[in-house]
């Protein structure tokens, strides 16, 4: 699933390791989510949304909705 995580992270000037630490996951997890090759679970998606003060839909792009 496509997402804006890399852009949002860059705006905050965070490294993948910084974001991983705040989420309580590994850096590999953040990388896999950013590349769109691993879809996070709903609880992790909510954690990401809270961290960036956004909704899940603003971070993740649902390809089927268009």
């Amino acid at each position, binding site marked *: 699933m496509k997402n804006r995580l890399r852009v949002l992270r860059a705006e905050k000037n965070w490294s993948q390791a910084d974001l991983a630490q705040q989420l*309580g*996951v*590994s850096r*590999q*997890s953040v*990388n*896999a*989510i950013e*590349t769109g*090759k*691993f879809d*996070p*679970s709903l609880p*992790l998606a909510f954690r990401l949304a809270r961290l960036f003060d956004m909704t899940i839909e603003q971070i993740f792009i649902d390809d089927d909705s268009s």
Partner: protein
Amino acid sequence: MYCTNTAAARRYRARTLFATTHISCRFGVSLGCLDIVIRRGAAVYLLALAPELPIFAILAIFGIYLAEEKDEFIRAVLVQSSLWATCVVLAFTTFWSLLQIYAPAIDLVLKVPMYWVFVLWCVSFAVAQPLVQRRYK
């Protein structure tokens, strides 16, 4: 686990090291005892079970680790790796069993004891982890 340093992974490594040490010691002792005990009755079963129990423990430790690991990506990699390892073991043991039937001469030359199956699973599991993780890069 592969390149991970979560609290659950550290606990898993420590527990596995403990269980593996037990397997090695118990296996050595049970092989050594074979020459001493009479090879019949309950003693043989107990000797065979001695190194087997830590193997159950290792599999249980892996299950506990999967339950304790909070990182869902690592969990996904581990589950996929264990499936690959199981596939390799099932494919190889089936192939080898058929080879024993079709070409008994090979079995006489390369007699592989069944206890190598678990070792094969562990090696396959270790090899599969970086390969599975590479798919996500």
